[in-house]
C-alpha cells in the first residue's frame, strides 16, 4: 500500500461517513434521542465543494503546501456548512430543540483532519507552523461570526460556559500538582539510584507494581485509606487534606507518573558515555561540574521524553478525579454519562483530548530541539 493510497482511503472514509452515517440529528431537547438527517443532504452544494477540496489533497502530484491548504479549506467548509445546516434544521422548531452532531460528522471530520495532517507533515517547520495558524484562524473566524451557534454542543457550552472554564482550569491545576508531586518523588529517587545502582531495582519494582493497579481502583481505594489516616491523625485536616476531593486524585495520579519520570531521569543520567565522564574527570572537573556540564546536557532529551509521557498521562488520569470529588473536566464527563447527555460528555472529553494532544506535540518539539542541540 502506498502513501497515496492511504490518502485515497481517508477520502473514501469521509465520503462513506457522510453518505451512510447520520451527519446531524434533530431532537426535541438535550436528552431525548433525535431523528437523523442522513448524510450530506442537509449540506447541499457545500458538501460537494468540500469533498472536491479534500480530493485535491490526495494526489502526490499536488505540492504538499497546496494539498494541505486545499484539505484544510475542505474541512473548514464542512464545519461551517454543518453549522448552517443545523440552523436550517431548527427553523420553526421549539427553542428547546437541539441539532446534535452525528457519528458521520465525527468520522468525516477525523478523516479530513488526518488527510490534512498527513499532507502537512511533509512541510518544513515554518510551513507547518503557518498551517497550524491558518487552521486556528479557520476555526476562530466562523466561531466569532456565530456560524456554529445552532449546534447542540455549542448551545450546551453557552449554557455552562463558566462551569466548563472552571473545570478546565481545575483540570490543569490538578494535573500540574500531580506532576510536581511525582517530580519531587522521582528525581531524588532516580539520583539515589544513579549513585547506588543497588537501590534502583527495588524502587523500579515498586513503581512498576503501581502501574499494574487499575487507575479506577487506586483512585477509589485512596478514599477509605485517606479516611483511615485522617481518623488517626486529625491534625492533617488542618492542612486541607480530605479523604474526598483533590487529595486522592493528585496522590493517585502522581503514583502513576512516578515511573516514567524516574525511568527517564535515571536513563538520562546514565546516557553520558563513561569515556566522556572519565575524560572530564581526568581534565580535573569536579563531580558536580561533570554532572552540570557533561551529564545534564545529555540527560535532557531523554528526560523530555519521560516528561512527555508523564504530562499526557497526567491530563488523562486526572479525569478520574471527577469520580472522587476532585472536579476538573472529568466531573463534566461523569455528569454527562449519568444524565446520558452526550453534549455534556463531549464538553468534558474534547478539551481533555485537545490538551493531551497539544501537550504531546509541544513537548515533542522541545525534545527535538534538545536532541538537536545536545
Amino acid at each position, binding site marked *: 500500500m502506498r502513501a497515496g493510497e492511504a490518502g485515497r482511503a481517508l477520502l473514501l472514509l469521509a465520503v462513506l461517513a457522510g453518505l451512510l452515517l447520520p451527519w446531524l440529528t434533530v431532537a426535541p431537547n438535550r436528552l431525548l434521542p433525535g431523528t437523523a438527517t442522513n448524510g450530506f443532504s442537509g449540506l447541499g452544494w457545500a458538501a460537494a465543494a468540500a469533498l472536491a477540496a479534500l480530493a485535491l489533497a490526495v494526489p502526490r502530484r499536488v505540492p504538499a503546501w497546496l494539498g494541505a491548504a486545499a484539505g484544510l479549506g475542505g474541512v473548514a467548509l464542512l464545519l461551517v456548512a454543518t453549522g448552517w445546516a443545523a440552523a436550517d434544521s431548527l427553523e420553526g422548531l421549539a427553542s428547546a430543540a437541539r441539532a446534535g452532531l452525528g457519528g458521520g460528522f465525527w468520522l468525516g471530520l477525523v478523516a479530513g483532519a488526518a488527510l490534512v495532517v*498527513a499532507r502537512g507533515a511533509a512541510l518544513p517547520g515554518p510551513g507547518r507552523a503557518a498551517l497550524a495558524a491558518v487552521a486556528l484562524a479557520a476555526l476562530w473566524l466562523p466561531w466569532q461570526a456565530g456560524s456554529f451557534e445552532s449546534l447542540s454542543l455549542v448551545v450546551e457550552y453557552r449554557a455552562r460556559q463558566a462551569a466548563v472554564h472552571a473545570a478546565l482550569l481545575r483540570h490543569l491545576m490538578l494535573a500540574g500538582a500531580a506532576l510536581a508531586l511525582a517530580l519531587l518523588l522521582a528525581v531524588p529517587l532516580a539520583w539515589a539510584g544513579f549513585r547506588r545502582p543497588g537501590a534502583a531495582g527495588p524502587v523500579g519494582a515498586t513503581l512498576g*507494581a503501581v502501574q499494574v493497579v487499575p487507575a479506577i481502583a487506586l483512585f477509589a481505594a485512596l478514599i477509605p485509606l485517606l479516611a483511615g489516616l485522617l481518623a488517626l491523625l486529625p491534625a492533617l485536616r488542618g492542612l486541607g487534606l480530605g479523604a474526598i476531593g483533590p487529595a486522592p486524585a493528585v496522590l493517585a495520579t502522581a503514583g502513576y507518573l512516578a515511573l516514567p519520570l524516574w525511568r527517564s531521569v535515571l536513563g538520562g543520567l546514565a546516557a553520558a558515555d563513561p569515556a566522556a565522564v572519565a575524560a572530564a574527570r581526568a581534565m580535573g572537573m569536579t563531580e558536580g561540574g561533570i554532572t552540570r556540564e557533561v551529564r545534564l546536557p545529555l540527560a535532557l532529551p531523554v528526560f523530555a521524553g519521560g516528561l512527555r509521557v508523564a504530562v499526557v498521562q497526567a491530563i488523562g488520569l486526572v479525569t478520574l478525579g471527577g469520580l472522587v470529588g476532585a472536579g476538573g473536566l472529568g466531573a463534566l464527563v461523569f455528569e454527562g454519562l449519568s444524565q446520558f447527555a452526550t453534549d455534556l460528555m463531549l464538553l468534558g472529553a474534547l478539551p481533555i*483530548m485537545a490538551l493531551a494532544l497539544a501537550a504531546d506535540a509541544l513537548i515533542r518539539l522541545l525534545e527535538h530541539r534538545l536532541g538537536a542541540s545536545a
Partner: protein
Amino acid sequence: MMALLLAAGLALVALLPGWFGGFPPGRLLGLAASHAGLALAGVVPAALLGLALGVLVTRPSGRALRPAADALAAAAQAVPPVVAVALAVPAFGFGWGPTILALLLYGIMPVLRATVAALEAVPPEARLAALALGYTPAGALREVELPLAWPLVLDGLRVALVLAVATAAVGALAGAATLGTPIVLGLQNQNQLLVLQGAAATAALAFAAEGLLLALAGYGAGRGRRSSASPASSDGTAQSRKP
C-alpha cells in the same frame, strides 16, 4: 511470583469483608469472572490485530503506512480509557459495547508499538543472512525475526493485558458488570467498604493477569532455551523477574 502473591493477598482483602456485611463473596467472584471474560474478549482480537499491523508496517510493502501508524498510536495514547468508554456510549448505548471498543483501541496500540520497535531492533544482518540461506521472506520472519523480537513483543502484550483489565473496570461506568461495579456502587452510596473491596479485587485480578502471563512467558522461554538457545529467551526470563 511476586505478582501472584500480591494478587492472592489483595483477593483476601477483597473477599474477607464479605462475611462481615460487605459485598457478598459469591457475587464478587461472579463479577471477577465476567470482568476477566470481558477483558479477554477485547484484548485477544486487539493483540492479534496489533501483531498483524506491526508486521505489516515493517515489511517493505507496508513501510509507507508507518507514519500513519505512529500518528494513530500517539493519538490513541492521548485519549484516556475513561474518555474512550464515555465517547463510545452514545454510539453503542450502555453495556458491553463501549468497553469492548475501548479495549480494542487500547489493546492494539501497545502491541503494535512493541511489535514495530521489536522488529526494527532485529539486526538487518540476521534477516539478510536468513534470506541468503534460502529462507523465503515469510520464513525469515517466522524463524528468525519474530523469535528475536519476541521478548519486546511480549512486553507489549503484558502492557495490553494490564490495560485491558484496568479498562474493563472503567467499563462499569458505562453499565458493564465488572469488578468496577462495586467501586461505582460504593462511590455513589458513600459505602467505603464496597469501594475498598472493588478496588482490591480489581487490583488482584490485574496482578494475577500479569503474573500468569509472565509465568507462561518464563515457561515458554525455558523451553525455547532448551531447543534453540536464542538470545531472545534469556531476555524473556529477565522480563519475568519484574513484578
